[in-house]
């Protein structure tokens, strides 16, 4: 489905056409869910948070400053809601240390990954992302999946631009390390 620009639907909602909000929900629901799910790592909670956030956005739509992007404003609401609702539980994951990829070049890792089938690649990257910390996995999804700019990520998460850049650099490295580890494990098994 082709959507018009967000501001078109925002104006309609502001003029009393409530049904126009459904277009905004449909357009942004997947990314909204991903943001919440990256933080809380639980699909039921993520769905509830995403829904609450859309309702908050609807109630506060008059406060939305039209010079900003609606999606960035909405994602910021979702991020804050998810953070505030996150239970302080320790998620057990095998922490990836800041390993230096001395043994393999990134090109080699990319080449190795490309040898895998689509399904295997999907499993490997899912595992690598799941092993990242919540906020790191959110950053990488915003950057690569939603193709958000550094400025937008900074606005959503409240991190500084330079902090976002540094974090993205480190997360990329972590993902490559994990992909190579998985590849090595598979080779050993074979």
């Amino acid at each position, binding site marked *: 489905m082709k959507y018009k620009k967000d501001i078109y639907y925002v104006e309609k909602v502001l003029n009393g056409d409530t049904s126009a909000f459904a277009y905004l929900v449909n357009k942004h629901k997947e990314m909204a869910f991903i943001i919440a799910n990256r933080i809380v790592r639980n699909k039921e909670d993520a769905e509830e948070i995403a*829904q609450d956030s859309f309702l908050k956005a609807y109630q506060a739509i008059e406060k939305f400053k039209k010079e900003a992007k609606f999606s960035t404003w909405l994602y910021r609401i979702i991020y804050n809601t998810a953070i505030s609702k996150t239970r302080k539980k320790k998620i057990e994951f095998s922490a990836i240390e800041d390993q230096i990829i001395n043994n393999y070049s990134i*090109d080699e890792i990319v080449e190795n*990954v*490309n040898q895998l089938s689509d399904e295997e*690649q999907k499993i*490997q990257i*899912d595992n690598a*992302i799941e092993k990242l910390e919540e906020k790191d996995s959110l950053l*990488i999804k915003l950057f690569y*999946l939603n193709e958000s700019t550094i400025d937008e990520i900074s606005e959503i998460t409240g991190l500084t631009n330079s902090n976002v850049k540094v974090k993205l650099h480190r997360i990329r490295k972590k993902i490559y390390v994990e992909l190579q580890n998985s590849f090595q494990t598979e080779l050993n098994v074979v």
Partner: protein
Amino acid sequence: MEKDINNRDDCLKNLIKKSTNEKPSIDFTEKIMQKIEAGIETESIENYEKSYQKWWWLLVVISTVTLFSFLLMFDWSFLNFQIEKPNLDQINTIIPDIQKFFQSVMGLLSNLKFSSISIIILGTIIMLVFIDKFIKRYSVDKKYVF
């Protein structure tokens, strides 16, 4: 060098796009819109009740004051009735039974004497409460748009 980095980044981007299996439930949008609609409906009923109560009470107060002013102040002699210009003493003589009734019901307050004005005010309030309840019963389930 820059090209290499971009190529690697494209590879990572493709991998991440492939991996995405995070999707909300099918009725995600419907659930939100239902909540929004429910919110609007509740709001319109609340707004109706508030405005209805405000206008109703205002109207009743004005009508009551006007009616009693008319009854008490108007010169009724042209009707050739035995009714003379009513005054508070006359009203006191008309309603001694009501006075007695209230005094007997409120045994503990039997020493307290009700003036005619007190009884009129009390009666008006009770009547208004009943009228209010009666009107609400037939109007609250409807949807009002103002």
